[in-house]
């Protein structure tokens, strides 16, 4: 198989398979989660749920008092790589083109030099949080296989994407194919691992806040 054949497979069959598994998995898990249901609550609401829910979404996105000082790497590194990923994935012009090709939606992108900078910062932040996970005994003890593999499938698309854009080490064709394949691996893994928090974290925060408000513990 030559590199062009690999790229052709990645853009065609491979992308179809990965997106199908992704869509299947995401819908399956969302239906499953929302289908769990809750017992009907017969008590009258003490406070309005909604406001408490929104407040919790915001509050849990910030570090609780004292924790920021105790583990700044987790908070800073975490914020930097999450924001970096969002910028690189959704504001890089070729990615917008891809989304437009798939679903027809498009929006303005950022200049590629700025994307380059954000990519490097994101890669650095991902490496720092990995290093932190390795050297801190408690974090290392709490980490299992899923933690390492999800870090890897998040890191690889960013790394291969940067190498492809910069034409480093391997021919562009090979790097573009590897980049698409690594993004496909991420799509396949996402619905079935903790990476699914991309779909659930805000929903679960809202739910927790809302139920607390309902019971009279507004946030």
């Amino acid at each position, binding site marked *: 198989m030559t*590199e062009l054949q690999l790229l052709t497979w990645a853009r065609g069959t491979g992308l179809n398979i990965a997106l199908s598994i992704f869509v299947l998995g995401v819908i399956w898990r969302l*239906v499953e989660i929302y*289908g769990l249901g809750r017992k009907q609550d017969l008590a009258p609401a003490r406070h309005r749920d909604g406001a408490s829910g929104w407040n919790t979404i915001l509050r849990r996105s910030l570090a609780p008092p004292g924790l920021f000082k105790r583990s700044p790497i987790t908070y800073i590194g975490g914020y930097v790589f999450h924001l970096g990923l969002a910028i690189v994935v959704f504001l890089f*012009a*070729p990615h917008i*083109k891809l989304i437009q090709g798939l679903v027809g939606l498009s929006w303005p992108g950022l200049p590629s030099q700025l994307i380059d900078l954000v990519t490097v910062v994101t890669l650095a932040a991902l490496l720092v949080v990995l290093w932190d996970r390795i050297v801190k005994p408690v974090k290392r003890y709490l980490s299992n296989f899923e933690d390492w593999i999800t870090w890897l499938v998040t890191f690889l698309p960013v790394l291969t994407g940067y190498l492809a854009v910069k034409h480093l080490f391997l021919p*562009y064709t090979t790097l573009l194919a590897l980049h698409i394949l690594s993004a496909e691996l991420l799509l396949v893994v996402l619905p079935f691992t903790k990476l699914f928090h991309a779909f659930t974290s805000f929903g679960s925060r809202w739910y927790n806040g809302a139920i607390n408000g309902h019971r009279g513990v507004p946030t």
Partner: protein
Amino acid sequence: MQGPLFDSFAGRGLSRRGFLKYCATLASLLALPPSAGRAMAEALAAARRPSVIWLPFQECTGCTESITRSHTPTIEGMIFDMVSLDYQETLMAAAGHQAEQALAKAVEDNKGKFLLIVDGSVATGLEGAYSCIAGKTNLALLKELAPHAAAIVAMGSCASYGGIPKANPNPTGAVAVSDIVKDKPIVNIPGCPPIPVVMTAVLAHFLTFGRLPELDRLGRPKAFYGETIHDRCYRRPFYDQGKFAKTFDDEGARNGWCLFELGCKGPVTYNACAHVKWNDHTSWPVESGHGCLGCSEPDFWDAGSFYKALSMPANPLKTVVPAAAVGVAAGVAVTWYNRSHKAAARKAHETAGVADLEK
């Protein structure tokens, strides 16, 4: 017809200076050091013209059309001065039995020394019956002649990789020359058609040094296939600035901006079009306003639409809707299982009293 080359050059009024300039041009095209031009001149001047046999297989004659538009050196120069083209169906005057006799004689007289050029893919389906010359299949002819050749030149994408005949679903079982012949030096000169000067420069290299030029891992001469179209493209600065033509007639297209979004395959295509150009260095596809099709890459025909950007999905997403339906079905099934499990647990629940605790 065979004799030292320089004699025939001189007979045609070519000066020594002109001949040296010509050799220097060829050497620089092949990215050889300046001293190679002199070596080339000495070798070519003394060389006896080697026999060349050109076999047309499953092809469209585009490669022959292309080489007849070669300008440095000209095809006439090649045929009459540098090589003894003993068999080329399209160009030779002889036909039928005469042509076959010429072929047999050329093979007999030059066993182990002639250069075999093949254009077109080799059909292997129905034992090769899809493509025959004088009652012989291409497959049989190649197997018969290849052992006697000094080297083989696979001219064009079909001979190099199977090309369009091999495109999905490949009804004739077309394969490349290198899939059949394993024990001879083969140089692939892919392109649909290949750049004329690349063909002639490779022949000149063989005449001068008696061996094929340095090849890459796909058997292509590195001098011409070492870099991508994209890397040598004069529109490359626009790519770096993010300036793209969106349609073939918008302002970007008129300003000569990058054609990546219109499906240009330049970034994944290794060829010399961008700097050698076509038609006596007049122009080339991207300069004329159309993206590169990637015709010199293996299986370019099956690499998705010519008009879709490389970063775009090659196929429309047909499987996502069924996948979503399966996802809903799986979610509903698991929900049903969860709920029935919960209901069963509730049903099996027994209230424990004080008496139970004392048991």
